[in-house]
């Protein structure tokens, strides 16, 4: 099972702002979940409105592997 490094989780989040609230995203707690399993992670999100940022590298990388691993459990 691969380990997800911080870089993949956060991506270029420091460059991203919430367009609605017009404030930079900050790293905060997010609960992800899939097929009956939930897991807390830290991701860039808007601390005002809660909008979460999933970088493309994370979606195309570890997220796919985790989805597969959870499905095949």
């Amino acid at each position, binding site marked *: 099972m691969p380990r997800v490094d911080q870089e993949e*989780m956060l991506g270029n989040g420091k460059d991203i702002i919430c367009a609605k609230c017009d404030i930079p995203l900050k790293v905060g707690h997010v609960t992800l979940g899939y097929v009956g*399993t939930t*897991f*807390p992670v830290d991701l860039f999100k808007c601390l005002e409105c809660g909008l*979460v940022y999933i970088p493309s590298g994370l*979606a195309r990388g*570890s997220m796919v592997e985790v989805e597969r691993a959870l*499905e095949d459990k």
Partner: protein
Amino acid sequence: MDTQQFHEMEAKCTRENLPRCAAACPIHVDARGIMAAVRKGDFSKGYALFARTAPFPGIISRVCDHPCQEACKRVEAGGGLAINALERACRDFNAKPLIKNNLIPNKDKKVAVVGAGISGLTVALNLSYKGYKLTVFDASREFGGRLLKIPEATLPRQIIADDFEILTKLGVQAKFGVTVGNTDGADVLFNDLLAEFDAVYLGLGQIKAADFALGLELDSDGCIRIDPVTLGTSNPKVFAGGSYRQDSSELSLINAVSDGKSAAVSIDRVLQGAGATLHTNRTNEGPQPTRLFTSMEGIEPLPVVSMVDPGEGYTREEATEEAERCLDCQCAECMKLCEYMQHYKAPPRTLAMWIFKNMSGVGGHKFNQLMNSCSMCRLCESVCQDDFSMADISREARETLVSIGKMPPSAFDFALQDLKYSNSDAFAMAKHEPGFSKSEIMFYPGCQLSGSAPGQVISVYSFLRKKIKDGVGLMLGCCGAQADWAGEKETFAETIQSIKAEWERMGKPKVILGCPTCVMIFKNNMPDISAEFLCSFIDRIGLPEIPPAESYTLALHDSCTTRYEREIQDSVRNILRQLGHNIEEFKTSRELTECCGFGGLMQISNKDLAHRVVDRRINESDKDYVTYCAMCRDNFTNRGKKTYHLLDLIFTDETGKIAARPPVGYSQRHENRARLKTTLLREIWGEAVQDRQAPVKLVISDKLSSLMEDSLIMVSDLQQVVDYAERTGNKLQNTVNGHFLASYKPAFVTYWVEYSAGEDGFVVHDAYSHRIVINATDHGITPEQPGQCPVFSSLT
């Protein structure tokens, strides 16, 4: 699918049946393995394989009555292999020690063997290996019995001595020059043996036992009654066999050896206190039938290699040459043709077992993808003499997983959404021809032909209306094949029900099907609906007037879903000939045709494998291809092979010019279906159809389109994201390049778009998706196992 069902299905594969040689041999010598070793010139390995099964390899290699040779498949092409002579060559050229130092356990039980012939000595040898104390009684002065009467030239005494040396090494006691019986003249009383020994084996040879007064039950011929399986007698301690129970005209050394091996198994069980299981698991002893299939295709007849000096046996070179004639019997007919089996590098029964394990959940579901990757094309079933079907096993397993809620959502969700779309108001409809209140026939083009070639659907419908005067209805929708392949029994049944209901509402007309997959689904699931494949129907009623302007030589690809439909295949060929085209046949055509990668939804669940399947097929001929299934056409075209749909050749433009259509992707197919319906309603039924609300206009590069196609992301998914983001303002922005980032989750998948405003619409810079849910607890995911994900939890 329960265990029994599964075993019935997998047992159809006879690949693991013994080859004919080993099956005919009562002790199942691995002649095929020996031949393979000899072919490589490895006589020592050949000898080791032989000695593993044959208790006295020197003797047996000289004087075996070799039933294997008559059973050999080579009999059909030049003569059975000289297996016995090759066994002798292995003994002659073996370079390793004849006797191995085995670790022998020590048991205190004692066994008497009466008769020092080959069966008795086999009992003595096999039980000595297990640690029992053996004593052999014989009236003569040495081991060998009947063997000693064989001429020296045929069976040298040194060979006998070498083979029997092991008996001495193992401590087998010999009592020579003694007779055994309960009569006055006997040197040893049989009843004393029974008292002193824990078990007795009688290998009496070709004599009558009545004279010995052994007190055992006799048959009507006055012979000891012997159980043919266990070799037991009326006394549970006494076993008997060998040439004693053979007809004097059909004496068989190897059957006597086999008796010895079987008796040893029985005696061991009795002495271990397992006498109650004497009959259990004995079916593999003695000669047995085999159903292993061996193809004789391309096998040239070759005569048996003769020996320069028959007295000396084969030379190394002669032996190797003779072993080259071995057909190496093994059935791999399906594996030779199936890309799926080749990809997973496993024989069919192993794959079946993995699928069953995956279905049962033993050790998790790690074979999900394997289970979901079979194209269910039935090529394995078609090529197999026993109709072994990976398709049936896969479907059963998929249905089971769906029913217990363990089917991975990512496996077939895309295809099921596609089915839902095709049977929604966006595409589905059923109407009589304008001006008619009933339909003589009803055209059902199917979702894929409509998605791939909407123009041809319109041409066909116009053509049919011209030809058929009593009303041609039209029904748009999907036959449900995708649900059937995905193991979604309920969805599939609902789809079939609603098709039937619409067909009844339309007055039960004959249905003309535009897609071979629909033909399969209708035939198997709606037998009460009279249906015919479009091309067969056109072949019967006659082609359109316009003759084609060009004539091609085309490689004809048959559809896998109609591999058994000879009439369809014939009518397609007939049409092509009428159109003036030359047909190039594939080696695997008609019932042996290959899948295009869409079958079984392989393309959705295992894209890379599906690409391999397509690529293999499109490289089988350098001619342009023609097919009569829209998915085959699209898959071949999308991978770069110029491929016509048969309808492209029939329905040319006014000048007869034939045009090969460009590739069509998933998004285009949806769009085509919706547009087809709108066009038909407007142009044929004259209905005022309102345009759908114009979707957000997106500009997407070819490169990104192709990436989206691979990731099963459709343009309409991205339009929803941008529409949502622009409507609600819920979007992020990259401060470096100014691009917006937004996501939207219409059903199960969250889609992301990186975009910016452009002159012709929104320019899409990137698009990706994931199934993992953000803020899972807000989305109803019950945290059954919070924090159990070993990847993500490591960061918190």
